[in-house]
């Protein structure tokens, strides 16, 4: 598909911050007719300088602040920060705390994937699936409210474990919600993923091979859709993942439809993980006893975890004072939007730009931090 370079009239079309599909991210498209020639990303609308703010706050305050970094999957940020600090201190978390953290991490993954189904179908103009998907995610938010007291931002983690114990009512509500979601998954299969217009809009759109995906730095479902089984829950297991059996979903087409199916089957995996965890939940302490003015010893640690979007790593340098010296959050959406999206947008049409952008499932707040 070569474009003769004769006198081609290029025009720039802004895929602006106020576009319903762009979600506060601005990109300039160099367009020839309807064919996108080049895409130039302009992030920065949600940049709050998280890493600078975290250097002024004590660890408990940071645990509360850091889950605002990724808006669609808040619990993975808390998990990453708490584990990174515990690694520098070599702190041991009681067994029940590990199980509760893994349960909440998987519920966060389901919540993020449900939101993603809604946004992708809204972007493709498929409003009924959008309304139903955003109605279904209320069940997970209700679970969040029961367990942690906060709807969207759980503020549930502290260094050394979890701040509250989960009650029996939460366990029963979770089983009910998971059964309901499992039934809904078969409905989504018939209603969204096997829908002809959805397949036509996403098949062979935004296709990248495994080699290109690795070179661009893709992680998470976008990389697994190209056939590489890189899942940190299996490669560098943390929390209670070694005690849980699940399989990593990979497909090998590498286009938007493969990414959608990867995420759809990951919801089913997460549901089975949460069930296994809830069935053999150990009892006992859920939080290590720490003094209120606990300070991490001098040291450095790099902790990676698998968030809903991909590999999220926390690099924490602490110099013995109660505040961390430097925290770096490796956001998965950073490379999804700034290096994969311009690569995939070359040669596609304007109508496919929102489909590609939201099939990469990148959260603008997570990209700008």
């Amino acid at each position, binding site marked *: 598909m070569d474009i003769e370079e004769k006198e081609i009239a290029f025009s720039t079309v802004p895929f602006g911050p106020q576009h319903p599909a762009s979600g506060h991210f601005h990109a300039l498209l160099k367009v020839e007719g309807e064919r996108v020639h080049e895409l130039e990303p302009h992030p920065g609308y949600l940049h709050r300088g998280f890493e600078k703010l975290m250097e002024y706050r*004590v660890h408990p305050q940071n645990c*509360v602040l850091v889950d605002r970094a990724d808006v669609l999957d808040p619990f993975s940020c808390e998990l990453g920060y708490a584990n990174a600090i515990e690694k520098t201190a070599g702190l041991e978390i009681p067994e029940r705390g590990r199980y509760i953290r893994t349960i909440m991490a998987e519920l966060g993954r389901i919540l993020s994937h449900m939101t993603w189904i809604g946004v992708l179908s809204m972007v493709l103009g498929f409003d009924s699936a959008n309304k139903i998907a955003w109605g*279904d995610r209320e069940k997970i938010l*209700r679970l969040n*409210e029961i367990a942690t*007291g*906060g709807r969207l931002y759980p*503020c549930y983690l502290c260094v050394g474990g979890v701040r*509250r114990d989960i009650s029996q009512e939460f366990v029963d509500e979770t089983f009910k919600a998971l059964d309901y979601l499992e039934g809904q998954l078969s409905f989504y299969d018939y209603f969204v993923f096997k829908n002809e217009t959805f397949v036509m809009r996403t098949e062979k759109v935004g296709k990248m091979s495994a080699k290109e995906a690795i070179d661009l730095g893709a992680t998470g479902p976008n990389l697994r859709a190209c056939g590489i089984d890189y899942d940190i829950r299996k490669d560098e297991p943390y929390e209670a993942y070694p005690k849980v059996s699940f399989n990593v979903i990979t497909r090998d087409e590498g286009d938007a439809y493969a990414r959608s199916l990867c995420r759809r089957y990951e919801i089913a995996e997460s549901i089975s993980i949460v069930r296994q965890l809830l069935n053999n939940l150990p009892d006992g302490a859920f939080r290590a006893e720490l003094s209120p003015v606990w300070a991490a010893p001098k040291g450095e640690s790099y902790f990676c975890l698998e968030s809903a979007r991909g590999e999220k790593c926390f690099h924490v340098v602490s110099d013995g004072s109660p505040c961390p010296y430097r925290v770096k959050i490796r956001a998965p959406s950073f490379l999804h939007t700034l290096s994969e999206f311009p690569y995939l947008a070359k040669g596609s049409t304007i109508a496919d730009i929102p489909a590609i952008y939201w099939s990469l499932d990148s959260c603008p707040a997570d990209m700008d931090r």
Partner: protein
Amino acid sequence: MRKMGYLSDKFSRTFTPFGILKNLFRKPMTLQFPYETLPPLEGYRGRHALDLEKCAGCFICSMICPNKAIWPAEFKGRRYPQVNLGKCCWCQLCEEYCPNEAIKLTPHSMMVTMDKESAILGLGEEGFVPRHQ
């Protein structure tokens, strides 16, 4: 070229619309907001409540608050913490770090105002008195 199964697929698709009928008898997914609301949960982190007798005036809560939302205020000759809901992030650190459980977060959370000044929880007899309704 469409595969041969297209015809049987088409045939089975003609009956799917009747599958919609079973949705007629299911409860609507939408919550009719003003008429029915979800019951508040007792663990939800809503507005603050202060117990005047228990409060020792140590202001640990205003030190731990990440948003500087709790400031000292005079009331009947003594200094008590006063919460500005316009700054608070409802993280419950103040309740966790208060040595004698004076400040607590109640599940009540209806907080809508037309002017900014009324976001500050005034001090009254039984602790915090919301200025707006």
